[in-house]
């Protein structure tokens, strides 16, 4: 067990809380840098998806996990990012302009979707964002002159400053770089006043407002930043799959994205990445399991059933998600043999004022 004795305010603020963290995260980055030399083509492809979904997961985590606003429409922002990238590339606009444009365009749309969030809460906000998802999907399908409708759009490999990123390794490093930049930016935000305002809104809107937090500004801002990250994820996704069409951005996709946040652990940055990894690994495990199952069980519906079961069991048995589970395991080892059940249980045992809602 490590005890931190704080003697300096900088110890509160810095990203790495102690030298152990510096070591382990450096090791992690080193391993990630070596990945292209270790994995085969198929696994590399899965790593691409893990990183892309991590970026999207980070965006959704900011909104759901840190600002407490639900969204069942994030596939729409993914679509906006993907189509912006596809259309701009088709017009010969370089990647270093088209990627920020994808983020900005998604963010602008996020601002618009954020507006109903000022009045809607919980399930009603979920329905509003769900409707937004359906609208965007429909627009993409019908606006054939722009998006190609159901016949979709093809993308070429990314060209960055004259270098073609057409190998698995180069695309992987691009995704890895963007993931790390997103994580650092998000952590920076969360340790400054804006991030605290988000958390304040999540935990108590009424007292956030009484402390001078402008709910309207910060809610829409959270939607915008979340959408921007999802837009970046969308652009990378488009390049990864090289062909995009409306059926990739349905409500089901939105639910998968929410799954990342819930499985990973609501309210933790680690959770977004762990959740993304889990979301990619799970179908592989199901595919492996199918070989050992009787053919009438191993039908096409199996994946949806397993996903649903996993989601429900996490909500019931481990609301803190994968990251919460990891914290528990770590604490168990650190405190051995003194770990006791319920150490992570947090109660809200005191009456909250209902009158102010």
């Amino acid at each position, binding site marked *: 067990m490590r005890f931190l004795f*704080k003697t300096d*305010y*900088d110890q*509160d*603020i810095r990203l790495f809380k102690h030298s152990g963290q510096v070591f382990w995260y450096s090791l992690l980055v080193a391993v990630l840098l070596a990945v292209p030399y270790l994995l085969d083509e198929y696994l590399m492809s899965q790593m691409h998806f893990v990183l892309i979904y991590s970026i999207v997961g980070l965006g959704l985590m900011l909104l759901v996990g840190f600002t407490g606003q639900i969204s069942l429409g994030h596939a729409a922002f993914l679509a906006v990012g993907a189509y912006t990238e596809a259309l701009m590339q088709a017009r010969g606009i370089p990647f270093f302009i088209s990627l920020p444009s994808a983020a900005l365009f998604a963010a602008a749309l996020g601002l618009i979707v954020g507006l109903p969030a000022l009045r809607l809460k919980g399930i009603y906000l979920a329905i509003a964002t769900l409707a937004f998802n359906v609208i965007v999907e429909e627009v993409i399908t019908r606006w054939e002159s722009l998006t190609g409708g159901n016949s979709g759009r093809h993308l070429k490999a990314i060209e960055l400053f004259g270098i073609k990123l057409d190998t698995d390794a180069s695309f992987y490093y691009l995704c890895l770089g963007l993931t790390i930049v997103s994580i650092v*930016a998000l952590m*920076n*935000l969360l*340790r*400054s*006043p*804006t*991030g*605290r*305002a988000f*958390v*304040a809104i*999540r*935990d*108590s809107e*009424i*007292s*956030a*407002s*009484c*402390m*001078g*937090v*402008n*709910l309207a500004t910060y809610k829409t*801002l959270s939607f915008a930043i979340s959408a921007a990250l999802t837009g970046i994820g969308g652009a990378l996704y488009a390049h990864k799959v090289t062909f995009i069409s409306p059926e990739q951005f349905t409500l089901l996709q939105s639910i998968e994205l929410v799954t990342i946040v819930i499985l990973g652990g609501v*309210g933790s940055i680690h959770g977004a990445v762990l959740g993304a990894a889990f979301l990619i690994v799970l179908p592989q495990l199901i595919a492996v399991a199918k070989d050992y199952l009787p053919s009438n069980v191993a039908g096409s519906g199996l994946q949806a059933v397993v996903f649903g079961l996993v989601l429900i069991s996490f909500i019931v048995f481990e609301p803190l998600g994968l990251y919460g589970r990891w914290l528990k395991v770590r604490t168990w080892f650190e405190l051995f043999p003194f770990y006791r059940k319920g150490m992570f249980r*947090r*109660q*809200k045992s*005191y*009456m*909250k*004022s209902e009158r*102010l809602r």
Partner: protein
Amino acid sequence: MSFFKVEKLGIRFGGVVAVDDVSFEVKRGEVYTIIGPNGAGKTTIFNLIGLIYPASAGRIVFEDKDLTGLAQHRVAELGIARTFQNIELFEHATVLQNLLIGRHRHRRTSLWEELLFTGSVRRAEIAQREAVEKVIDLLDLAHYRDSMVAGLPYGVRKVIELGRALASEPKLLLLDEPSSGLNPEETDEMAFWIEDIKKGLGITVLMVEHDMNLVSRVSDRVLALSEGRVIAEGTPAEVQSHPAVIEAYLGGAAVSAAA
């Protein structure tokens, strides 16, 4: 110039007149307490001052600025902080973070600086912590500084809420039943702190309170409400012995029996 003034304030919820024609004035540097039986409209007045409810009638004037019609978050920016009767803390944040959110109105950094965490953000964060540390010292919260609020005992939460309001360096502090749910020792401490806040920090306090011991110990002036109307105003002793106040608390029969 008056410091804080409420003029002919009123609000009705459907047919219920919760606050009716209430006027009072708080002078800079005093502790002003509102008392009254349950349902007298004390907390409603706080919610009207915090612009949580829009007033149906009247004005709320703070340093010659009319609050009515402003956006909710502007109240805090002008320098009015409050606590809640039923504790409204940020449960899944540490005590330090809670107090830092109290300093939201003193933030000076822009979004882009924060995303990059530039030197100016780092300096601002350290300055915010220095300010918050004074509150932590005053209220003796150092032990809980880095603990999550969820799971802390009720008495401590009450103090954290006071701390969060103080961290914003308000000119006027609204305390909604600071002693409710506290044991006698904790109430005693609360009384010391309210005196400290008034004398040491020079913050004006407007308080709603039921515990008459605490009220007479710290208040300079007291306003008694009943059924949304003002029934008496004056020093704690004057108000406590006012016949209308006794009637409101104990009923008309008690007054005639006492007489």
